[in-house]
Each structure stands twice: as C-alpha cells, then as structure tokens.
C-alpha cells in the first residue's frame, strides 16, 4: 500500500515529521517498507526561461540559448527542436546529476560554444519516456523562474510504502491509515468530505439484479449503481494523475482514475461501465462453465459455476470484485456511464482470485473485506468526483439487495489488558484509544460493551481489543516479566531419540565424516532407484523436476553432493546426514536415518596418500565400522545383532548386509553402492555407505546411575591360536560363534587375525586364523585344561562349519 505525505494530510492534520510517521506506523503494525522522496533526485533542477534562442554558428541542429535561471543569465547549447525564445523550461546547472542519463554535467564546449548547463526533457528527469523535446511549462510558470522544479510541480512529496497484514482491509485506503495514526496521537483525523448534489431526479435506466440461488446469495449481497448521462471523459485533473503516478498507477482517463483514486483513498473498489455498451439489465450471478470474457488486462478469462460474475443480458462482463471487462470499459468516447459499488464475499473472491491467478487492486481489497457500510457513501463519492471531472447528469441511485450486517458488539473487561498483555494502563486511555479507532464503548466500570466499526472485520473477540489497545499504547511499553522457574536446577528434557540424534551426530563427525543437510525432495527417478517414487509422495507443484519426490532414503542426496564435490577436485571425502525420509505420507511413515557415504580413500582411520603408506579405496568394511561404532555410541551392542545378506538392491549384492534384531527390527544396512546405481546417478565409484535407522533402535533399558561392581580377574589370560581350513563360502561369523560357544565361561574373546585364500589350500577353500582368549577365574589353567578347551573349540568349529584344523 503506497501513499504520499500530502495525500495522508488530506485525512490527517499533523505536524509530525516523515521519520516520526514512519516509525509510528511500523510500531502500530503498519510496517513501513520504504519511504522515498522522488523530489530528492530532482533537487538541483530549477524552473528557467529561455530569453533568446539563436542558431548555433557551427551546427544546423543546435541552438544557443540565453537562459534566465533566477540567479543570472547563462549560455546553454540545446539540441531540442522545440527550444525557442520565451519558453519556460527546466534547467540543470553544471555539476548536477541527470537521473535519466546517469551523466553529471561538466562545462565543455559543444562545437566551439561553451554550454553552462542543460535544458531537460521528461525522460532525462525520469518523469516519462518522452524525449521529443525539452519540457515546456505553461507560461504562468514565468513567475516561478529560479525556483526548484520539484517543489513547483509538487514532486517533492515523500512516498510511503506500507506492507499491510491481511487483517487490515481498512488500511487499504489512506483514510484508514490516517485513523490509526490519529489514534496513536500523531495528529487529528479530519472530518469526512461532505458529498452533496449527487442524487439525481430520474430513475436509473439500467436495471440491476442479483441472480443467485439461495445458497449463494452471500456471493454479492448488495449491488448499488447510479447512471450518469452526458459525461465528457478525458484526462483527469493533474493532481489526481500526479497522486496515481506517485504510487505507481498509470492514469487512464477521468472515469477510470476516479475508481482507482477512491480505491486507494478509501479502500473502496468501484467499477464504471460504458452504459451504452450494456445490453439490458446488469446483474451479479454465478458463472456458467465455458463462459468467457475479455478482461481489462487484455486476456480472455473463463468463468465457472463457483465464481461470482457481472453480466448483462448478453454475456459475462467481468469477475465481480476482481476484474472488469474490456468491452464495457470506459474510453474517451464514453458518454453515459453506470457506476457500480457492490459488496463481494471475501471467501469467494479469494477462491476465484486463486483459481484465475488474477492479481488486482479490487481483489486485494474485497478478499480482505471492504467496509459494508460504505456502499452508498462510496457510490455517492464516486458520483461526486465524476460529476466534478466529467460533468453529466446523475440518476437516482439503484440498490439491489442490502449490505451484510456488520454490527459486532463485544463485552469486554479492561482488566483483560493486564491479564493478557501484562501491562497496566489507565481506563480512560484505553477507552479513548478504542474510540479513536472507531469503536463505540458503552457502560462503565469493569464490564463494558464495545461496538466494532464496520470497517474492522478482523475484530472478533476480546483478545483483538487487547491488541488494539496495546499496539496503540506501544508494545515497547509492555514491561518484561520473568517466567517463573519451575525448578532450581533445570532437568533433562530430551527424549531418548533426540538424545541419540545428538550423540550420533557427534559420533559420526568424530569418525571424520562431514555433516551435510540435503533437500527432503529429490527427482522422481532418484527416488525410484531407492525404493520410493510413488504417486503419494510426489509433489503436485514442485519447484523443479529435480525436487519433486519425497526422499525414501538420504543416500541419493548425499551421493549427489559427493559427486559435486568430486567435480570440484575433492576425491576423498566422507559425508553424512541425519534426517527424515518417507515410506508413505502418513506421520508414522516418516523415519529418521543416520546415513553416511565414503568415497575414494576416505576411511575413518587413514585416507589419501602418505609417506607412511597409502590408504586403500574404501570398502564395505569402512561402512560396517561406522555402523558398529555408531550403534555402540547409541547403546546397542552390534555383536548381538544378526547380519543378513538382504540389503536393498541399490547396494552391491555381494558386498552389503543388514544388521537386524530379530525378524522385525532393522537396525542398519551398509555396504558398497551397486555400480549400476552409481552409474545411473552419474557418481564415480566405489562408494561405501551406511544407513542406520535411529527411531527403529530398541529403547535403552533404564539403568540406575550406579555401575555394577567391577569383576576384574587377577589371573593372566591365556591366548591360543587356531587356523582352520574351510569352504570359502563359510561366513567368518559362524566360525567365531562356534569357537566362542565352545566354553562360554572361559572364552572371553575370539579375534580373526588372518584370512588366507590360495591354491595351496585347494579350490574353493580358505584359511581363517583365530586368536582365542581364555580368562581363568579362580586359578591358573593347567595344560590339560587348556588342551581340553582347545579340543572343544576344534570340535565345535568342525561341527558347525566343517572346518578342519590346518596342519
């Protein structure tokens, strides 16, 4: 919402400075986005008179002018065809900056004659695109020679741009803003302009109807109109044009300008039809499927049965409250007009606006809710201005329907202000604030009745009244009050999952992974490759095709980030993200994953080339190490989990696995990414990756803070090595399990210290070397005991895996 200072002063008697006004507006909820003064850039230019214009001695197209600037006559070379003796123009002295060309004038000869300044065109002043010649001011400006051009022309009028919140339709007009400022003691609201002599003697010759089915009557409950015959349309007065231009509107003609002016001045949109182009009655009704009209925006629009349209006997003319039609619009040739001042339902207007995508000043106001009590007054004001600008003879007003009832009365207790806002104000102050804003307060003491003004559809309850009082008093005056502290020392508040997320983040970063945050939506193809891409998770209005599917996994985003970094020359890197992914669109389908990728040689322990030895390429075991460490950090012993070979297809089928707790709980999956998946995503391999499902982890059992007693055996542990020859397909895990199970009391650890596959063992065979730790409890083990355990280990391994002790 834009307005100028002088426009504001039409409604507000004030001596406040621009800064004070802007500061107050922002404080009371009318946020000032900018205050600009178009006069500033025009400040150096002055009204001047060309005393004499003579032909330039050395150039056919140039003239040498003697210019009276108010402080002496100077010689100026001018190329404009209209430069002539006696004309009044605009002079730019040496040193001034010309906004339209960006040039700062200096003194230099033009074809041998020194020019001491410049006479300016409208384009050079950025007033219009006109550059046919220099500005010619009317002759009566001769007495203003020497005065600043901007002031003389009224261009030094600061323009306020206020960002309105959607609850304040009253402030879509300058008068509403003035009312708020007056309530905030920044001036006095001037009385309304008296309108008289607009009610004609003859009946409106155009019939006005409301044709709605019962259930849609609220679409347009009231349509007032007045006919004016014999208008002489043309440009509107300069002051109207200037105000419209100042706020960014293009003046069209007097009839159209009047509607735009009242829309801005009073927040009351209107429409004026060329009555000679109407066929029969005019009516508001619901649209019909397939009806079209050509709008004032030059485009053809189609109505449907949910929309409120204005139509005559022949066709749809426009969308009510949104856009008028070109065919019945007013031109210079218009002689007879019908003025429309109607009320359109905010909801339906908003819905139609959204459906059609039309942004207009009318829609902006109607969808916020115009003042229903300002239908007749609006019509009369428009009639008065039209009569003033274009002449003509008005008819009697014709009003179809009646304005919607807008008489809200609230019971209110002034004590609410302190209860809700924590500020103690004097009752007379609160009462006068409400009254200044147009509320009527009746009753005395604790409970009062407050009648809400018709222009404030946003006021529904007591909290709204508290807001009115407090915002005008100033939120800065509300004293801060400490919140009571529930406990002396704050208690822990995080849930176990929240705590795990925090720990997981630090644990992964401590393993050298770098945390990233990638988009929650990815391309449908990428989502499909990772088990997603279904219709339910596809955005209807994505910002781009690359960001249309809710991600089923964090891997696609991480892999893409990985490759972007490689393209920048970082080959060895490890990234992770902890975030949400989606199996479906229900809340319980959203899950939390800690996902990491390692590429190149970026293992946790070593990476890159080094004099002490180069790191190898990452493998599934780097990812497994991440998973096992992370699980430990989150209180889960990975050794208790089952390793299964059923990782999703985007992993390498032979180099990936899942960690499960029973058939139901999937803790994590890890491995090398499938080469085809990498190829499809254009990512270079190999890439080791893991996904750990944080909210699938079983809860940690609540333990007491005290630890159990330490049981440290004083006796030396005994270590024995075993090498088994096995079928190559036997999992090491089975061998370890068998060995460890041979004597659960004695065996505390089984470590694989060598893995060998070679021809010497025979085809399809491998050798696995175990170091088994025996921990005696009561007394040192005898050789016989050790032999017995060893024999059991060998027997168990053979039984479970077929492995033979290596000779």
């Amino acid at each position, binding site marked *: 919402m834009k307005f100028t200072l002088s426009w504001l002063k039409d409604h507000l008697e004030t001596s406040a400075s621009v800064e004070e006004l802007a500061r107050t507006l922002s404080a009371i909820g009318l946020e000032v986005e900018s205050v600009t003064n178009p006069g500033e850039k025009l400040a150096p230019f002055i009204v001047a008179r060309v005393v004499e214009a003579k032909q330039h001695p050395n150039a056919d197209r140039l003239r040498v002018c003697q210019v009276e600037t108010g402080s002496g006559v100077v010689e100026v070379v001018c190329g404009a065809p209209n430069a002539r003796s006696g004309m009044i123009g605009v002079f730019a002295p040496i040193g001034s900056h010309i906004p339209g060309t960006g040039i700062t004038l200096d003194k230099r000869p033009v074809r041998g004659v020194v020019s001491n300044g410049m006479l300016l065109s409208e384009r050079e002043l950025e007033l219009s695109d006109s550059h046919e010649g220099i500005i010619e001011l009317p002759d009566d400006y001769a007495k203003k020679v020497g005065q600043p051009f901007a002031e003389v022309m009224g261009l030094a009028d600061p323009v306020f741009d206020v960002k309105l919140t959607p609850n304040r339709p009253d402030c879509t007009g300058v008068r509403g803003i003035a009312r708020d400022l007056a309530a905030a003691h920044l001036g006095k609201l001037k009385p309304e302009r008296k309108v008289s002599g607009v009610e004609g003697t003859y009946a409106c010759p155009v019939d006005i109807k409301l044709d709605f089915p019962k259930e849609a009557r609220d679409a347009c409950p009231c349509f007032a109109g007045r006919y004016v015959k014999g208008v002489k349309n043309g440009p509107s007065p300069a002051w109207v044009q200037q105000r419209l231009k100042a706020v960014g509107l293009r003046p069209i003609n007097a009839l159209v300008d009047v509607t735009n002016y009242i829309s801005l001045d009073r927040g009351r949109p209107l429409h004026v039809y060329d009555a000679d182009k109407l066929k029969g009655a005019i009516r508001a009704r619901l649209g019909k499927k397939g009806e079209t009209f050509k709008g004032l925006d030059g485009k053809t629009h189609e109505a449907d049965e949910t929309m409120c349209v204005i139509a005559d006997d022949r066709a749809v003319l426009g969308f009510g409250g949104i856009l008028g039609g070109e065919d019945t619009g007013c031109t210079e040739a218009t002689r007879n007009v019908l003025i429309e001042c109607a009320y359109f339902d905010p909801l339906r207007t908003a819905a139609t606006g959204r459906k059609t995508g039309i942004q207009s000043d009318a829609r902006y106001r109607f969808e916020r809710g115009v003042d229903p009590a300002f239908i007749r007054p609006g019509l009369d004001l428009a009639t008065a201005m039209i009569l003033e600008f274009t002449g003509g003879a008005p008819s009697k007003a014709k009003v179809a329907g009646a304005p919607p009832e807008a008489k809200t009365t609230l019971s209110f207790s002034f004590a609410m202000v302190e209860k809700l806002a924590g500020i103690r104000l004097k009752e007379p102050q609160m009462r006068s604030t409400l009254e200044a804003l147009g509320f009527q307060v009746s009753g005395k003491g604790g409970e009062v009745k407050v009648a809400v003004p018709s222009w404030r559809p946003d006021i529904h309850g007591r909290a709204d009244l508290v807001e009115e009082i407090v915002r005008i008093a100033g939120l800065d005056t509300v004293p801060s009050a400490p919140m009571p502290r529930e406990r002396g020392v704050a208690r822990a508040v995080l849930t176990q999952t929240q705590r795990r997320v925090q720990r997981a983040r630090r644990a992964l970063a*401590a393993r050298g992974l770098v945390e990233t945050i990638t*988009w929650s939506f990815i391309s449908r193809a990428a989502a499909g490759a990772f088990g997603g891409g279904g219709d339910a998770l596809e955005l209807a209005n994505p910002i781009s095709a690359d960001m249309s599917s809710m991600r089923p996994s964090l891997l696609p985003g991480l892999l893409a980030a990985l490759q972007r970094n490689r393209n920048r020359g970082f080959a060895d890197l490890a990234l992770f993200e902890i975030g949400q992914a989606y199996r479906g669109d229900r809340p319980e389908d959203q899950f939390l994953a800690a996902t990491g990728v390692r590429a190149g040689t970026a293992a946790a322990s070593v990476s890159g080339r080094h004099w002490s030895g180069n790191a190898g390429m990452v493998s599934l075991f780097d990812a497994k190490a991440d998973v096992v460490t992370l699980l430990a950090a989150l209180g889960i012993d990975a050794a208790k989990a089952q390793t299964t070979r059923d990782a999703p297809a985007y992993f390498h089928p032979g180099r990936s696995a899942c960690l499960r707790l029973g058939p139901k709980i999937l803790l994590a999956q890890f491995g090398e990414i499938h080469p085809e998946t990498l190829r499809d995503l254009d990512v270079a391999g190999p890439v080791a990756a893991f996904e750990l499902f944080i909210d699938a982890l079983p809860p940690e059992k609540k333990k007491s803070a005290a630890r159990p007693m330490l049981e440290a055996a004083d006796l030396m542990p005994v270590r024995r090595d075993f090498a088994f020859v096995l079928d190559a397909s036997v999992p090491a895990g089975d061998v370890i399990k068998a060995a460890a199970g041979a004597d659960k009391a004695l065996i505390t650890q089984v470590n694989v210290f060598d893995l060998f596959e070679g021809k010497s063992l025979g085809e399809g065979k491998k050798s696995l070397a175990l170091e088994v730790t025996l921990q005696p409890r009561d007394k040192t083990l005898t050789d016989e005991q050790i032999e017995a355990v060893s024999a059991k280990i060998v027997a168990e391994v053979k039984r479970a895996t077929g492995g033979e002790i290596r000779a």
Partner: protein
Amino acid sequence: MTSNADISALENALVSEIGAADDLAGLERVRIAALGKKGSISDLMARLGSMPPEERRAFGQAVNGLKQRVGDAMEARKAELERRQLSQRLATETADVTLPVRPGPLQEGRIHPVSQVWDEVVEIFADMGFAVAEGPDIETDDLNFSKLNIPPEHPARQEHDTFYFAPKPDGSRLLLRTHTSPVQIRTMLRQKPPIRIIAPGRVYRCDSDQTHTPMFHQIEALVIDETTHLGHLKWCIEEFCKAFFEVDEVRMRFRASHFPFTEPSMEVDLDAAAIGKPGQWLEILGSGMVHPNVIRNCGLDPEKYQGFAFGMGLDRIAMLKYGIPDLRDMFSGDLRWLRHYGFLPLDVPTLAGGLSS
C-alpha cells in the same frame, strides 16, 4: 704361594682388562677368565681348601675382597658399555621429526552450522524448562492451517507458498508443512497444560531466490498455562537472544503485526549490535499470544488457558550469529563451505562451557 701382592697384581690386571673391554662380549670374556669355573679368581678360591686354617681366613678375606671389587668394576663397566651401546643404537634411530602425520578424524569431521545452532537453542530453552517437540513434515491442511485459525481462502494462506500433494479420492490434500506451528497443535491436542515446548524442524515453501530456499528450518516456542502473558513473552525472547548471541544486553524493538494464530501479535527486531553491527535492526522473529480460537481448536478452554508462541528461522539465526552470508549454501553440501563454517565434533555447546566458545 700367593701373596697379597699377587692378589693386588691380579686385581690391577683384571681392572685394567675390564677397563679395556670394548664391548659386552669382551667384558663377558674377562668375567669368564676371572670368575668362570677356571677363572683366575675361582682358581684362588679353590686353593682355600688346601690352606692351613690360620692362613685361610686372611687369604679368604683378601680373595673375597678381590672378587667383590672386580665384580663391582665389571658391573660398572657393563652399565657403561650398555649405555654406550644404547646411545649408539639410538643415534642410528634418529627420525625426521618434521615429517607430517595424518590429520585424525577429529580434525576432519564437521557438524553442520544448523545442527550446532539447534543444539545451542535446545540448551538454552531446556534451562528455561522447555521440552523439545517434533512433528511430521507431511501435514494435513487442518493442522497446518485450519486449526491455526487460517481458514480456507484466508489471504494469509497465499503468503505461505505451500507445496501440495495430489488430492486424495475424498478431495483432501496433504501438504508439506509451511511452518513448525502444526507441532503446537499436535502438542496441545496430546498434552494438558502447563505446556512449555520448542519445536525445531524442517519447513517448506514453494519459493526460491537469493534469500529463500524451498526448504529451511524453523524453531517454534509455545507456552500455555493460566497466567503467561505478553510481558513473559518479551522476557523470554530477550533472555533467549542474550544467551544465544552471548551478550550481556540486547536492544529489541517490538512491532505490532498480524498472524492468524496469535492475538495480539508482534514482530521482533534485534539491534544488530548483538552481532557487532550496530546501527541496523534485524527482523528475527514473529510472536504473539496464542489466539483463543487456536486454543479452542485444540480442545482447551480459552477462558482458562492462555500463553504465547513465537517462531524464527534456525538457519537465519545461525547466519546472523556466525556471519554466514548465503542461505542457499546451507544445503549445497559443498565440502569447502562445510569445513569453513562447520564445527568440530567436540565443540559441544553447553551453558556451563559457553555455547560458541
């Protein structure tokens, strides 16, 4: 016959041999020659048996003394030779101490600034008794808008640039939450007052330019009880800003505003002096007293319960505090950026140790 003089000569000879032994093997040879089974001293000891008792004692003493002294000399020489041998070995083991070592994972790993700030904010609000509540990203129209007092066709909806999913057979449409406020609703529907929560999380708007990304992070605070008022809201915001920006004083500006879900509503500006840039105001959050309709929509009695809510951009306050210039970089996964603006794994923010130090 062996005289004291002979013993003395033998001692001198042995001491001199010991001194001359150049390595441990040489010394061992000397030891065997003197103290071995057939060594010179053992030899003397062997004679004791055949001596007359009156000589035996004096001789024995003399030989034992000799043995003792030679033994001591040998130990001393051995220690010296060992020392020499060790220092010779150490001399060969000299390494180039300027060779670089690999940086460890603690130096390589990073925490994203948004996560770091998330932890900071949680730390502050936990001290004020706020729990952390969460909700899903894919929301219903009802929870994202209607229950928050934003009916269909309300102009405020247009300002939200909502991402929608395809309509369901029943005509309903799910959406990506445009703010963290649905978590307020979920909390109030689930939990009886008093309520003190913060709700951090991802939110989505169909908007993308230099200062907007289609996904960003918000944090919301909600307090509902029977007495909390606007003065408490101001205090809470002031205390948060002081703690978060780690300054003793902040200057704030409270401007009336409008949000459908609060009444009264206010926007809060922070004097940028808090981030070392005095002379400008920073819009940091929107806030207000929870609208009676919202309280009622959650099945609570607005005559009895009241409270405040505020929300701010987590990314935005991270950018302000840590001087991060461009929002879009937050989600680019650029390693250079992450290493520069990210935090080390052990930079754990605590109130006791400081949030950023």
